[in-house]
């Protein structure tokens, strides 16, 4: 069964088509063609002796080329990677007698807070209970200094 194979810390990737909008592709290719033309003119201008104009045209050509390739790559990436992040959920087990013994393990189906467990406390032999279940979110939230 699919669910049995799932771990608690799983990321799934979209198995969908990499279809990119034809409009976007058209715009990217027009910009690419113009950038190539700009590069050719830059070479032409350089041999004619106008080095400043050649430099400007070359810079425009290179920037346009890089941007169009990046845009095309980005649009394909965005479609290909739609992910659902499943965070790791931890179960904390403590002693009912409050002997300060605490253990932590990955969540298992059937766990719930205040569930008394069959296994006894290794420290004092008392009953064990699930005291908390939570996920830890690692990424730091962006602060805006306001």
């Amino acid at each position, binding site marked *: *069964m*699919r*669910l*049995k194979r799932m771990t*608690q810390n799983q990321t*799934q990737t*979209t198995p*969908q088509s990499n279809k990119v*909008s034809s*409009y*976007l592709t058209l715009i990217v290719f027009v910009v690419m063609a*113009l950038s190539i*033309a*700009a590069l*050719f*003119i830059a070479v*032409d201008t350089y041999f004619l002796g106008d080095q400043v104009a050649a430099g400007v045209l070359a810079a425009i050509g290179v920037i346009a080329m890089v941007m169009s390739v990046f845009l095309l790559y980005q649009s394909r990436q*965005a*479609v290909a990677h*739609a992910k*659902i*992040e*499943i*965070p790791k*959920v931890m179960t904390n087990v403590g002693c009912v007698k409050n002997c300060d013994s605490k253990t932590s393990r990955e*969540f298992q*189906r*059937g*766990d*719930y*807070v*205040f*569930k008394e467990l069959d296994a006894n406390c290794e420290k004092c032999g008392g009953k064990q209970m699930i005291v*908390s*279940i*939570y*996920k*830890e*979110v690692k990424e730091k939230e962006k602060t*805006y200094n*306001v």
Partner: protein
Amino acid sequence: MKESGATKVSLIPGTDSITQVLSLVMYVFFIGFIFYGQRIQMYIMIREVENSLHKLRHIKEEGKKTAIDVIKELGKPTTDPSSRIDRYLEYFTIAPQSMDPAGIVAKLDHILDTRDERLKEEVKLMAPELQNDEVQINNLENTLEAAMALNFIYKVVRHYYIQGKKTLSLYVIMQLQMILPMVMKEAEAYASALKAFAYGQPIGDGAGPLVAGKLMHGYETRKLAKDCVMASVPIEGRTAIIIKAEGPGGNVGKPGDAVEAAIEENKGKIACLIMIDAGLKLEGEAVGEVAEGIGAAIGGPGVDAFKIEEKLTKYKIRNYAIIIKQDIGDAVSPMRKEINDSIDKAIEQVKLMIRERTKEGDKVIIVGVGNSIGVGQ
């Protein structure tokens, strides 16, 4: 030879043909943007919406698959539950007519009860193995409701996307594109909730029941209203009637009915009612922040809040509220550590309230509002 003195004026600047061609292209782009700028902007927006729609469809399909897998694994159905689940995902509820609003709360309450019963019956039919396992039935119902929410979000976004494309209306697309980040956040939260419900993990909304659970743990409990439990607990020399939805199954209970019953059982002799719930935080506020206030801290369609307010007004009982702040994503996904850590702070706040606002020997009601999934008592 004498020069004429007249200069040749060209519409297209440049001396060589390549520069002229480039200039012409620039003119074409410039004029094109004047006339079609808005349309190009719209296509870019449509593209953004389309990407999000693909992602929403994926999330929705995953949600449905998860629901089917859980039902197959736990419920052991004899036939394929897919078609039944498809039908379940399309269920709708019609709100009662409000032209004459008198008595609308009872009507809404009845409709919500009918809906809940109907959906539970459906889950029992899908999962015959779990006929008597209320915990799993509740969890499955919650899982399917999350899948239902994802299906609805996808369909609404798709509706406006197609409408925008059909009419080529910038304003339809623009409105959709503007709210899309919030819609996506909600959809991702439901996707996360789906897994939490399928596994029976506590969620952020369970902060209230967790506070109540910690206060009542170790004391005798009894059923008070539908899906609600209560325990009588001595706190700071007062008697506290602690109420929460019955766990560990996914369940919010009927706190309105439970509070009504507790007040009537004590003939209105209650010093105060303290409600603890998860509250939506504003951007910039910390997750798990505990805040205190006045009023019925309970969400939903308003039926429970109405019942509680009616009873409190009748007996002139003061109503205090404590909220544990979190955003919508945190509320429906597995409980964050920050929220879990704030439970003890909320309990301290409850005790402080009791000490400062009631006298020894008084009776108080404490309600932990929220979904009890993964939280026992």
